Structures are given as C-alpha cells and as structure tokens.
C-alpha cells in the first residue's frame, strides 16, 4: 500500500518502514508517526464512530485533546480501548481496531440513531426511561449498557506491570514547547534541579509543527538543539512521553510516563508505565494552547479538522488528509495552514475567512467575510457550502477542511486546586486565574503569550523568577512575534446540527434546548447535555458551549461561569494507579518465624491482617478441616500442643514511670504488679468501650512487655503514643515495638512443663512453685540462648509462652517437636486456638467488637475506681450500666446435634421473634471436641442472672431456630485448676 497522502519533509524516519494494521487492513508508516498521521498518510480519514449517533468521524486534532479518533490498540490481553490515535506512537506490528460500530466502520447499523436524532437530544434518557419504574432494571438498563461505551475490554488480566516512583526538583516544567524549553535552558544553565516533562515523544511542542524560524534555524532544529544541550546537563532530567496528570497540594504532581507504549511489548522486567509523584519546589506550566473549532452544520465529517493540527500533520509528519483542502478561519493563524500546505504542494481550494478585512494571498483564493454553512460527504468530506459576503452561496470542493476559531490557553492544571480561570477580553479566552497550586507559575501560550517570541521570553523570565535568579536576563532569540489578540467567532448563525462536543455528540441545538428547559448554569449545562464529560473532558468543546449559552442567556461568558478541570489531564490506566500492588503483592505479607517449618508440615494458612498464620495442620487421611482441628484440640488438652503466637503485638514499655503509664492505659491496676509477674489487662477507649486486651509482664521495675491482639497491634501502639506524648508528656516512658524481634510459641497442655524442662536450661526453675501461674522471667534455653518465658494460658490448660530471638524461632520449633515426641506433641493452628479459647470463655475480637464495655464482658469490677485511667470516667455513664445490660454468657444447645451460629440472636423460649423482644446475640461459636457438641459465647441481657434459662437462638436469614441453655462461659475447667497445675 502506498502512502498516497505522504508529503515531503517532516520529522519521520523514511529509511525505516513500520507495518501496521487498522481494522485488519495492512498499512505502512515510519518511525516518528502517530497512528493518526500514518493513517492520514495512507488516505484513511475515517477512524471511528461517534458515541451517540454513530456518525463517521476522523481526527479533529493532532494531540491529546482528540475527541474523535479513538481506537482499540493491540489485541488479546493487551487490548486497550479508547486510545487516541493522535497520540499513539506507531510501532512495527501495531494492530488497531475501530470502535462503536457494527458490523464495520464504513457500514454501521447503529447509525440509525443519527436518523432518530430528533428524539435523541439532550435529556433523552431522563425523559424517556422514567417509567414504568419496573422497566428500569430489566429492560432499560441492559439496553443502555449494551449501547453505551465506545471500546470493549479484553476481559483478561492485564499482563503488563506498572511502577510508581518519586522524584524531587527545584523546578518542574510541564510542557517542552518554546516556553518550556527556554525555561529549562535558563534554569538548567543556572544549576537548578530541573524536571522537564512533556506528553509527546518528541520534545518541542508547536515548534515541531511550524515552519517559522528561531534566530537562524528552523523552530524544530532549535528545539532539537536545545533538547540536546539539556541532555548534557546532569541537573536536568528530561521526561518525554510523560503526562503530568494532576496538580496536588503543596507542589506535588502526578505524572504518567509511558515507558513501553511505543513498543509491541515491554522489555523483560520493564514496566509499561510509571506513575511518578513529583515534588516540586516551584512549577512552571508551559502547556501551550489548544485550537478551538467553529460550530457549523455537519462540521464533524472525516476530513474536517483543526487548521493548526492539519498544519502539524503536514509539517511534522508530512501527511495530509487530502490533496485538496479548504480552510475556514476567523484569524490569521488559519492562513498559516494554507501557506504551509500550499508550500508542500497541497492544493488550497479556498480560505474562507469570517473577517471582511481578512488578508489576501497571491497563492490561493481568500473568501473574505464568508462562512461555511454546511458540508457533504457520507464517510468523508467531499465539499463545503459557503455563504459569501454578498449573500450568495458557493460550493467549494475539498477532501479536507481546516478550521480555526482561535486558541484557548491550556489552563487545566491551574484549576486542579482552587484556580478559577479568568476571562481575557483581548484574547477572548480564559487565562489562568484565581489561586494557582502553590508554587505554580504559567508561561507561554498557556498564559496567553501566543507568539513564539512571547513564549520564549516568558519561559525564561518565569524560570528566573521561580529560582530567584539575579543579574541580566540573557537575550531571547529572534522569533515571530505576532499579536495575540483574538476576536471570537463561536458558531455560524442559524446552525443547528453543529457539533460542539464531538465525542459525546453534543450540538448547538442541544445547548439551545438546555437553555430552553432551564438548565442554564454551566454545571447544569454539562450534566444535562453531557457536554465535556467524555474522555477528552471537553478540551475542544467546553468554551464553545459556554459561549453559546452566554449568548442565549444574554450574559457575558464569565457571567455564565467558567469551566474548571479536574485530574487526570488525560485518561489514565487504572493499572498505573495500582502500580506493583496487585494480586499477591496487593499488600506485604508477614511470615512468622516458624513459617518454613509449618509449610513443610503441610499447614493450611489463613490471612490475619497481613500475617499468614497456620490455621491447622492436616495429617494424612484427614479429609475435613474439623478432623484436624478436633484432633489438635484433643491432643493439646490430653498432652501438649504448640502454637506460633508471634503475631501478637509486643510493645516494650520502659522508664521509671512505666507502671504509672500502664495504670493509665489499662482500666485495671498495674502499679503494684510485682517484678516477675504477668497480668491480664483490659484497655478501654475514652468513651468506655473496650478497645483491646492482652497481658503486661513486668520483667524489671522499669520494664514491661505488653502484648496486644494480632489485629490491634498497630492501633494500640498508636494509642499508647498518643497517651505518652499528648496526655503524659512529662512521664518518663519509652515505647518500642518488638513484635518481630521475638519468635513466641504457646506450649499448652498437661505435659507442657515436662516438655519445656527439656528445653529450658536447668538453672531456671519452672516448677509450679518456682514459676507459678502468671510468672514471667528472662531465661536461657538450649544451652545458653537468651529467651523469655511467660506462664500464661489462652487455652485454659497448664501453659507457657516461650520467646527467643526470631532467627532461632525455626530451630526452637523443630526442637520442641523433636523433644516433644515422647509426649506426642501436636502443633496446632488458629482454629484449634479459637476452639480452646471459646471452651474456656476467653473474649477475643468477636467479643471486643467496638460496642462492648468491661461490664458486658463480665469484667466490670476490673475497672479500677482507685485511679484514673483512659475510659474509666465514661464507663460509669448510666447508659452503659443499666440493670439489664448485656453480659457475656455461654450457650449450650439443648439437643447435642443442634447447631450454634455466631451472629444469631437470642429470644425468650416463647413469644414473638422480633427486634423488640431481642435478648442478645451470639458472638462466637465452635464445635467443642471436649464436650462433644457445639458451644457458643454471646451477650445476653442481664445474662449473669439467667443461668439455666432456655432461650431460642434464631437466625431468620438462615431460617434457624435452636433451643439453647444459658450456661457459664467457662465450659472447660471453670475452677481454673488446670492452669495452676
């Protein structure tokens, strides 16, 4: 296939040919091409269908503002919908597919919508799908969902990876056009840390699209030379292919670098994109300007595009949409396009200029005071109809029409905080205004300095100002310096099906309807018509819609309102926001010191917070988890079991005021706890609700080791820091987490002491007399290794917790297993741990659920009245201490086969089953292998006085009703004889 519309020149590498396909058809282009420029060079103007009416569309622009040329790139899992052909860098083997058409781009059945356009105007959905209400879910929504959306997803996992990164600089320059390049040169030569980011793969901005010179060379050459110099400066970082998508608080910017989008697949190990978080002391926005179209009837045919984009295709990419083009303009810039294309051998059919005093040309015909009123051509422009100044109509034959309505500064990033653009009468455009993001300045066309000279100068000056550079400013190279004044011309009088927002199919008629129906503020206009709410955020359409609404309302544009913009500047892949945090890497995983060993034993693991804990250890032949868990419980209660409890939070509390401190954070007393003793502690929130529980072991007069529940470790540590720094600032207390420093194992069961006596060095007496229940000590094990021993029990058995430095945790577990063989030692997981604590009636997370008090937990008397502690005051509120307050109880099914389920509610033995008669609820339930039936823990109104009562446990959701008896929560060893054995 020849590149019929390829012109001479351009910044493409003609020595290399890149083959690509569009809708299955093979084409050729060159390095330097975008998909859009290569398609135009191949005489393809039709690239997509519009969203609502399925109108045939070609590219409107040559950049990221593109509303029309939206395609699917690649295939398989890498298929990416809604990609702008105007920014997609061409690579060999690229496959692109058009969207929103069936069966083909040239013949689209849904184009019937275009014929129905009288019905499908703004507000159509709101008016039509209102009733009957029942139709919504079953009929309307599925139909709309099927019709809506442009591209399609592959429905496969994204095979690419994404990174996130952080960069810091003195000056961030956004946009590498004349202003940005000259700013970077100024700042870079001054030695500042500079980041220059540009969304394009070739830096230079409009300089690459124009023919006029800077000093004695072409603008493009000046850009290339400047970029080359910047690349030699170690303090300047050039970031091409990088879109700054958002300006956030205090000089923080989000930027997406497209590392591999110009490659068929990313290189091994390389990300597709990187989301950079840039910290800039100062920022210079040099984002340039976007040309604005003029609205006229049928202004959306393939071949009709912005005049400066047409010029960019010709100058930078040596491509033209047609060899016969016309221009429709209200300003001199349109004439530049005519001049440049003419110079490349393209026939200029006419320049249609709305101004009666438009400049004439010897090279082509200029129709002064004329306007395009309609166009023809089903799948591509064939001719335009022109109203001439004398009122006559004329037909101009052309395959493309360049439209120029002036320029709008790209103020988007100035709005991301609180900036409100202000209207500049001279430019007839919004310029940056209001409070800009902190540290941001704007230069060049983005600030309304439209000439090349103005951009170069303002870029350099703004950089000097941002960095506080003194001395004489270096000379600005000579360049065109045309005045930037603009006279607005928004739409052709009397037009109706004239497109403003080409992506969302919003016409002048829709804006009129919106006005007529009372949706007149800019925010209502947007939502009623969907103007500017497509993926291009209305970059080429918002101002036009606003101008028309202003005229209809008889107001000025700034009176109607401004349109502000939110991040991201251009559509951003969700994947890059996630970065590496995907799948298994969604969060870091915490492994216990016995993890390797547990894996060898075939443990089943469960996630508890970020921890992976052994849930149970199945043995050969066990086919159901209950078999393993029941065995682990029974074996522990019969002899000895070992469980890794490293995950419990451990906080080292030291200082001469450590005991006073614990007296404040725990509701029960710690001041008198003897050295070498451990005590259970309950921590309340200030409102009297239980926060966490654990133990505190006094290893020395001025040192405690506090344990927290696994889930609350971080929160308790934070709470303790708050108390220490904000409430007890003078206290001598030091805190540090030691959770991961120590491998800690519970050794439980009647043979636990005998097992530990084989581990603990003999000079430490761990007999019942020498080391009674709740004792703690620094000891040594296995011939001298420092360790800690606590005689505490969660299972209700004679039990110890033993801790060694984590690196020895694996070896200690293996040693416990080896030495425990004679006792049939059994490792147990979190399930057996849970069963045993329910059998023993110990509260855990289910009971400390953020609604319960010490009283509810049966620990009301623990709240010391002899001292002040966090929560002690408010826990005395009458509302928390009513006579029928919920109390923790045990529940036993009357029939041993019956099920007890957590979450079920308790009702009296007879009477209504409803919320008004609710007696309480079940928090924990388990099958007790010790008792041979299920048991439960729950909260029951006045539960302490209702032992022996029969209740109904109901769960209407699962249709369950079971008779249960209220019993003591201590199902096993209620006298606590075993723990003291």
């Amino acid at each position, binding site marked *: 296939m020849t590149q019929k519309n390829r012109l001479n020149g351009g910044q493409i590498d003609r020595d290399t040919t890149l083959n690509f396909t569009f809708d299955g058809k093979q084409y050729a282009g060159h390095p330097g091409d975008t998909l859009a420029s290569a398609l135009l060079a191949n005489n393809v103007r039709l690239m997509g269908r519009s969203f609502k009416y399925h109108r045939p569309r070609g590219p409107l622009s040559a950049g990221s503002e593109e509303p029309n040329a939206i395609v699917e790139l690649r295939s398989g899992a890498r298929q990416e919908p809604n990609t702008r052909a105007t920014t997609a860098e061409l690579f060999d083997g690229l496959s692109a597919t058009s969207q929103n058409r069936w069966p083909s781009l040239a013949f689209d059945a849904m184009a019937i919508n275009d014929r129905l356009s009288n019905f499908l105007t703004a507000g159509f959905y709101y008016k039509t799908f209102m009733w009957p209400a029942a139709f919504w879910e079953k009929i309307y929504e599925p139909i709309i969902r099927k019709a809506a959306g442009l591209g399609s997803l592959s429905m496969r996992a994204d095979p690419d*990876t994404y*990174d*996130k*990164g*952080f*960069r*810091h600089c003195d000056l961030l320059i956004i946009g590498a056009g004349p202003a940005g390049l000259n700013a970077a040169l100024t700042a870079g030569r001054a030695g500042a*840390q500079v980041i220059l980011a540009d969304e394009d793969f070739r830096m230079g901005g409009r300089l690459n699209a124009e023919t006029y010179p800077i000093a004695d060379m072409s603008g493009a050459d000046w850009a290339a030379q400047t970029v080359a110099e910047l690349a030699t400066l170690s303090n300047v970082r050039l970031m091409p292919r990088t879109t700054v998508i958002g300006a956030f608080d205090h000089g923080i910017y989000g930027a997406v670098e497209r590392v591999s989008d110009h490659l068929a697949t990313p290189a*091994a*190990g*390389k*990300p597709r994109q*990187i989301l950079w*978080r840039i*910290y800039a002391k100062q920022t210079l926005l040099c984002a340039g300007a976007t040309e604005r179209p003029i609205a006229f009837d049928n202004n959306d045919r393939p071949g009709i595009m912005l005049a400066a984009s047409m010029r960019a295709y010709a100058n930078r990419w040596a491509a033209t949409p047609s060899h016969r083009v016309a221009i429709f303009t209200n300003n001199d810039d349109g004439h530049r396009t005519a001049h440049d294309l003419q110079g490349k051998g393209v026939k200029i059919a006419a320049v249609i200029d709305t101004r009666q005093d438009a400049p004439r040309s010897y090279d082509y015909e200029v129709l002064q005071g004329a306007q395009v009123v309609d166009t023809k051509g089903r799948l591509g422009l064939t001719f335009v109809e022109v109203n001439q100044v004398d009122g006559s109509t004329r037909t101009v034959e052309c395959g493309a029409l360049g439209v120029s309505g002036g320029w709008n500064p790209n103020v988007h990033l100035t709005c991301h905080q609180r900036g409100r653009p202000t209207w500049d009468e001279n430019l007839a455009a919004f310029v940056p205004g209001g409070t800009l993001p902190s540290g941001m300045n704007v230069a060049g066309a983005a600030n309304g300095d439209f000439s090349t000279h103005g951009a170069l100068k303002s870029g350099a000056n703004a950089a000097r100002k941002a960095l506080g550079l003194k001395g004489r400013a270096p000379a600005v190279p000579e360049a065109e310096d045309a005045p930037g004044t603009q006279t607005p011309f928004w739409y052709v009088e009397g037009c109706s099906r004239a497109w403003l927002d080409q992506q969302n199919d919003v016409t002048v008629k829709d804006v009129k309807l919106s006005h007529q129906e009372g949706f007149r503020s800019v925010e209502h206009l947007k939502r009623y018509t969907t103007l500017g709410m497509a993926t291009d955020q209305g970059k080429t359409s918002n101002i036009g819609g606003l101008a028309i609404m202003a005229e209809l309302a008889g107001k000025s544009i700034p009176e109607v309102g401004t349109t502000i913009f939110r991040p991201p500047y251009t559509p951003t892949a969700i994947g890059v926001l996630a970065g*590496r*945090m995907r799948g298994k*890497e969604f*969060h*870091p*995983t*915490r*492994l*216990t010191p016995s*993890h*390797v060993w547990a894996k060898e034993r075939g443990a089943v693991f469960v996630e508890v917070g*970020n*921890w992976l804990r052994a849930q149970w250890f199945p043995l050969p032949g066990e086919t159901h988890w209950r078999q393993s868990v029941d065995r682990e419980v029974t074996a522990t209660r019969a002899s000895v079991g070992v469980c890794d409890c*490293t995950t419990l939070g451990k906080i*080292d509390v*030291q*200082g*001469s*005021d450590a005991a006073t401190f614990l007296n404040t954070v725990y509701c029960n007393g710690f001041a008198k706890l003897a050295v070498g003793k451990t005590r259970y502690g309950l921590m309340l929130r200030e409102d009297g609700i239980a926060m966490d529980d654990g133990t505190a072991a006094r290893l020395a007069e*001025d*040192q405690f080791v506090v344990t927290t529940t696994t889930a609350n470790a971080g929160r308790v540590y934070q709470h303790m820091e708050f108390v220490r720094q904000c409430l007890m600032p*003078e206290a*001598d*207390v*030091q805190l*540090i*987490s*030691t*959770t*991961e*420093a120590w491998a800690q194992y519970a050794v439980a069961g009647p043979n636990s002491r005998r097992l530990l006596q084989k581990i603990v060095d003999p000079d430490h007496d761990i007999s019942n007399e020498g080391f009674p229940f709740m004792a703690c000590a620094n000891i*040594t*094990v*296995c*011939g*001298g*290794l420092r360790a800690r021993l606590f005689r505490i029990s969660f299972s209700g058995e004679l039990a110890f917790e033993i801790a*060694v*430095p*984590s*690196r*020895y945790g*694996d*070896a200690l577990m293996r*040693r416990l297993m080896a030495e425990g063989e004679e006792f049939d030692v059994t490792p147990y997981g979190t399930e057996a741990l849970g069963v045993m604590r329910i059998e023993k009636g110990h509260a855990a997370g289910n009971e400390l659920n953020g609604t319960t008090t010490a009283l509810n937990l049966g620990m009301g008397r623990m709240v010391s009245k002899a001292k002040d502690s966090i929560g002690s005051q408010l826990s005395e509120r009458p509302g928390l201490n009513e006579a029928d307050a919920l109390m923790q109880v045990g529940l036993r099914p009357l029939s041993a086969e019956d099920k007890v389920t957590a979450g079920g509610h308790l009702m009296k033995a007879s009477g209504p089953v409803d919320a008004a008669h609710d007696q309480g609820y079940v928090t924990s339930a388990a099958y007790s292998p010790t008792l041979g039936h299920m048991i439960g823990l729950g909260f029951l109104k006045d539960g302490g006085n209702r032992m022996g009562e029969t209740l109904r446990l109901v769960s209407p959701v699962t249709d369950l009703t079971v008779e249960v008896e209220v019993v003591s929560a201590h199902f096993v060893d209620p006298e606590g004889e075993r723990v003291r054995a």
Partner: protein
Amino acid sequence: MHDLTPITALGGSAARVDSVGDVTLTEVPDVALASVAARRGHEGVCAQTLESVLGTAAPSPGHAAEGAEYAAFWTGPDQWMLSADFNGYEDIAARIKSEVGDTASVTEQTDAWVCFDLVGPHINAVLELLCNVDLAGFQTGRATRTSIHHLGCYVISTDAGQSVRILGPRASAGSLHHAIITVMASAL
C-alpha cells in the same frame, strides 16, 4: 553455647545475594541492633554517653554516624538505633545498657529487622522507584525512615549514589526483597 541454628530473615541458611546489571542486593544477617531511648530528664547525659560509646557525636535528626565498634542512626526525638557486628555483639542490648545505665531505655532490636545492602553505581534509579527520598540531598551519612512497598523502612546512605543500607520489618522480608528485586529489573 547454645545449639540452635539460626535462619536468615528470608528463611535461608545463607544470606541471599541478587544482582541486576552492576547493582547488587545483599541480605545482611550479621547485624546486631539495639534501640536506645533517653530517659526523661537524662537526655543530655545519654547523648554524652553515646558519644563516648560511638567515638563521635550521637547523630542528629535525619543522620547516621559510624564509630569503631558501633554505628548509629537517629530514629526519633532522643532515640537512636545502634548497630554492631552480630558476631561478637549478639548481646548488644546488654552491652549498651551497661554503658547508659539508668539514663536510657535499651531494647534489643536485632531480629526485628531484615537488613539489605544495595550497592552499585545506579542505585538511585532503583531507589526512586522504591521510596520517597530526595536523592539529590541524600548525602553519605543521611538516614531516613520511609515507606517501601507499604513497609516502614530505614534507609541509610552509606556512600551517596553508590551504596545504601535498608532495614525493613523482618516478618515482611520476603515481600520487601521481592519489591526491591522487581524494581531493580525495572530500573536497570
């Protein structure tokens, strides 16, 4: 002498070493660590004692210091982490405590952390994808706490642009290691 065999934070019997290009990531298990926090009202004495222990002033916020036996970095107001060779200083907490006495609280931290050295001429390209550190100002002797892969880590500049030491929570050593080596492949 006890007879328990240690494993490294990554679960191996030997330290893990990974290289991409000319950057090498080495797991360093032989580091003994102890936290030293001055007691209220004894901040001055504690800092003086540390100076004599280190042979140089206790590091100021954001800094690290290296002495003959011990190195140290600042971890919080009047709080430092001291390190030494694990071989010979496994009892670092007890040794330091005997020096500072009642002027400071000392807590063994050796096995609370996994330690990695990241060494090579392009480590900054790796670091900027890992953590939010202003590398232009991260000169030799700077130390900071930062988040890597959502893990609170200490990063110490041991030779600016050439070598850093990273301390991360030991239980997440595998996740941290994975994060660093995938980013090495990405950046280098």
